[in-house]
């Protein structure tokens, strides 16, 4: 008598099992195949081409009625198995039952649904089977339809691309910072997002879904940040979990999936499991390649042969026509691993290989994946790549070609890209001059005015010369930002603007950064440049900031912190002083000191206490003094006309006004101001970044002073008659410095490079430019002028500043 094999689930894995079993033992088994879907086995991974219209359902069926008839398989499609009775060895469905000698569970996965309000409205679907696909196709027939796909992983993006191809306006909401973060690093994720954007898809990263809105059916999606996207259709593609319900009820051993051994046998020797529903050696599976290996082992076990399942590496590709990406292996970087990065910004190509010892262990590629399978082979086989290491990244076809061009970033600029911002000179104007005979920087300056003003674009002009003239031009050696790039700070600043680079990932990709995520030299500088140039678009990255700016306090040599509240223009009052005294008592502050900047420093505060002491000081109206920032520090003042017998103008009042206008702004290095009421200069205005001296006839505004490692006296920027003009000049100067200076250059160092004349031309002699600078400063302040203490006096911040766990008590017990 033939043995009875019952199979639960007609999916991709069980289809393979049947083929193997029938090929080797065509008459040995009496097979019954249950499937919850009202159809037989089909190629689930081809649902995406069906959705986009590139294929039909009939084309993706893997086993048709003929196959089942030929092999005498009893098909019970549309019938869900609801119970396994292990004692009597029968399975029960909603429509009957079937006895088994051997049972194979192949129930796949169930899509995960985020339980936000509205998740059960009609119009909200997942993406798993043919019915889901058909529902999406039907929804797309409505003209002008909108869809939101929640989840920017493989499935979500394939759904989004398919819906776009069918004419819907689609938005993808993704919780993480970049798309497909499990398969791609940020650089490749950036390129993917750029490509999808060019196809009309809207991508919203770092978006957390709060609710699905609608009365009788889905109408829109609301995010935690308040954004609302209209949606006739909402597709949730946020992940899957193994479908283990019937196995759990049958008391089989379950981890996250149904536990199987190397032979694919569950804790019951007569029950096997295969596919996405299983867990093997702690691992789950979500791609078909390992499932096919499992299927081979299942067949062997059923046929009494010896075989063991060993998971192998898998590679990922996204099935969206025209998008080329590939990732395989372990592409994390780290000690003992060598990271080979190739970027071709002009073609949108990014490749990264990760090598450990003499083996390739991971690869991420975007834009050009032709060599993907070759690299994948090297990873899987553990091939010794020592001999070809130098040229590995160029792929198998590479034979003695040339490497990446270090001038590629500049060579790739289009002719209309602006090189010299001061004079509005584009690359095309410069190349035209070179073609007309200009051969040196001096020639270019004379003929086009490029680099003839503030000079920060000098490096770029030289690179245009080098890339146009080739060997005929000798590049002067410039100091690059750090080992991650060959570009100088000035180059980077110009290119951020010329190419509208608005994220760290965009910048590192387009400018060919040599490391995957920069280093402690470049990241703080890049973070500043990006936030200064794109206050509305760029999101400040706390992890790219030095500890003091991340924790909003100065770290001390013993790891405690100092806390300095702002005292506007050096003024304070009994209430503030009492609050400071109370805080010093309450938090047992070891030292309280008057600083050189006319305010009070509480030294030796423990990190976990910071949000609490801030909250207490906030209550008395005190805000952060930014004594830790590359930003506005103090505005020192003297007592001025209110009390002093020599005072000429309200120096204290002006100082307070300036501090209130400028506080919270980030600058390339720290910025200190002072306002003195007469030339006796009690506020030490002549050694400040900006120092104002009041005189009978008005205000003398000086810039570029310092009294730190170098002692510098201010230079006179201008003399003005009204307080309003003095404020305007100060704000415009700070903004000019923010837009042009190199990170960690104090104003005096930057002034020495650009010259006082140039600065005067920009802000004293050009009222329109001055107004524009002020407007840009105020725009930036609309985003950044926030008290970091108030922002962190929350329970969440208090938890973040506390240790993650405390084992000191447990250990003591």
């Amino acid at each position, binding site marked *: 008598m033939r043995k009875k094999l019952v199979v639960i689930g007609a999916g991709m894995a069980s289809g393979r099992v049947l083929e193997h079993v029938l090929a080797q033992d065509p008459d040995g088994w009496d097979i019954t195949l249950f499937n919850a879907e009202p159809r037989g086995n089909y190629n689930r991974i081809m649902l995406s081409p069906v959705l986009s219209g590139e294929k039909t359902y009939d084309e993706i069926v893997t086993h048709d009625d003929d196959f089942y008839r030929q092999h005498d398989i009893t098909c019970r499609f549309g019938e869900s198995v609801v119970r396994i009775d292990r004692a009597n060895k029968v399975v029960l469905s909603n429509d009957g039952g079937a006895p088994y000698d051997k049972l194979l569970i192949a129930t796949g996965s169930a899509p995960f649904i985020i339980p936000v309000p509205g998740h059960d409205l009609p119009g909200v679907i997942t993406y798993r089977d043919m019915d889901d696909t058909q529902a999406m196709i039907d929804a797309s027939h409505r003209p002008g339809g909108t869809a939101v796909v929640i989840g920017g992983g493989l499935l979500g993006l394939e759904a989004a691309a398919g819906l776009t191809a069918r004419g819907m306006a689609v938005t993808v909401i993704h919780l993480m*910072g970049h798309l497909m*973060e499990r398969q791609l*690093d*940020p650089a490749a994720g950036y390129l993917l997002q750029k490509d999808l954007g060019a196809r009309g898809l809207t991508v919203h990263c770092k978006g957390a879904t709060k609710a699905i809105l609608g009365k009788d059916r889905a109408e829109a999606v609301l995010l935690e940040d308040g954004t609302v996207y209209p949606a006739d259709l909402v597709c949730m593609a946020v992940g899957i979990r193994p479908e283990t319900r019937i196995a759990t009820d049958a008391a089989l051993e379950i981890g*996250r999936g149904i536990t199987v051994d190397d032979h694919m046998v569950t804790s019951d020797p007569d029950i096997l499991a295969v596919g996405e529903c299983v867990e093997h050696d702690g691992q789950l599976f979500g791609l078909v390649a390992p499932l096919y290996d499992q299927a081979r082992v299942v067949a062997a076990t059923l046929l009494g042969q010896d075989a063991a399942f060993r998971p192998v590496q898998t590679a990922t590709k996204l099935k969206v026509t025209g998008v080329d990406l590939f990732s395989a292996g372990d*592409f*994390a*970087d*780290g*000690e*003992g*691993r060598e*990271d080979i990065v190739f970027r071709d910004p002009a073609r949108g190509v990014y490749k990264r290989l990760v090598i450990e010892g003499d083996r390739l262990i991971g690869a991420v590629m975007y834009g050009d994946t032709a060599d993907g399978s070759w690299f994948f082979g090297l990873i899987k086989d553990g091939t010794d790549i020592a001999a070809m290491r130098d040229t590995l990244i160029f792929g198998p076809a590479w034979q003695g070609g040339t490497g990446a061009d270090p001038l590629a970033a500049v060579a790739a600029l289009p002719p209309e890209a602006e090189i010299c911002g001061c004079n509005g000179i584009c690359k095309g104007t410069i190349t035209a001059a070179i073609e007309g005979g200009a051969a040196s920087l001096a020639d270019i300056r004379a003929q086009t005015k490029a680099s003839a003003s503030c000079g920060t674009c000098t490096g770029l002009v030289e690179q245009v010369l080098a890339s146009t003239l080739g060997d005929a031009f000798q590049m002067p050696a410039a100091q690059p930002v750090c080992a991650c790039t060959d570009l100088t700070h000035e180059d980077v600043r110009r290119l951020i603007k010329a190419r509208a680079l608005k994220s760290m990932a965009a910048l590192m990709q387009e400018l060919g950064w040599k*490391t*995957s*995520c*920069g*280093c*402690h030299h470049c*990241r*703080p500088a890049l973070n500043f440049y990006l936030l200064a140039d794109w206050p509305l678009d760029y999101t400040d990255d*706390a*992890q*790219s*900031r*030095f*500890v003091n700016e*991340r*924790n909003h306090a100065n*770290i001390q*040599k*013993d*790891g405690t912190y100092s806390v300095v509240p702002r005292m506007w223009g050096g003024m304070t009052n009994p209430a503030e002083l009492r609050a400071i005294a109370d805080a010093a008592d309450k938090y047992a502050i070891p030292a309280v000191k008057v600083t050189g900047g006319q305010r009070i420093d509480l030294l030796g505060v423990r990190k976990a206490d910071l949000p609490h002491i801030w909250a207490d000081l906030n209550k008395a109206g005190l805000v952060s003094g930014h004594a830790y920032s590359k930003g506005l520090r103090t505005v020192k003042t003297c007592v001025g006309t209110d009390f002093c017998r020599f005072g000429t103008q309200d120096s204290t009042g002006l100082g307070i006004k300036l501090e209130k206008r400028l506080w919270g702004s980030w600058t390339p290095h720290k910025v200190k101001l002072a306002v003195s009421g007469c030339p006796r200069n009690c506020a030490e205005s002549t050694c400040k970044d900006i120092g104002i001296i009041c005189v009978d006839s008005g205000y003398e505004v000086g810039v570029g002073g310092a009294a730190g490692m170098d002692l510098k006296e201010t230079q006179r920027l201008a003399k003005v008659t009204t307080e309003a003009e003095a404020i305007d000049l100060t704000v415009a100067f700070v903004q000019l410095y923010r837009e042009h200076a190199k990170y960690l250059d104090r104003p005096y160092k930057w002034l020495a490079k650009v010259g006082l004349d140039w600065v005067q031309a920009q802000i004293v002699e050009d009222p329109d430019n001055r107004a524009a600078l002020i407007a840009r400063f105020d725009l930036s302040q609309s985003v950044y002028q926030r008290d970091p203490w108030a922002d962190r006096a929350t329970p969440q911040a208090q938890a*973040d500043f506390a*240790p*993650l*766990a*405390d*084992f*000191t008590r*447990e*250990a*003591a017990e």
Partner: protein
Amino acid sequence: MTWLDIGALDDIPQRGARVVKTVQGCVAVFRTGDDRVFAMDDRCPHRGGPLSEGIVHGHAVTCPLHNWVFSLETGMAQGADEGAVATYPARVEGGRILIDAARLIRGRAA
């Protein structure tokens, strides 16, 4: 090894760190840009800087006090500087961070 659940991966920002207090001092737990976790003593061998407050780049951290750079994998100082920090086995499972408990609680003294 006994793995101890010390918190969720999302409790630590990417390219950031948090500390775990033990009787022998704090242990810094780092999360890198590629979502791996590493644990090591939160004390720089140079002058005791809190490594958990450093800038994390690749699989390395820069001490916030005087910029020594340490490998998160081996605890070794990089470049010209010499020194090492004790590291502890750590891994992520199902979004939770697990650390080798035996070494964490009994610590170096054992």
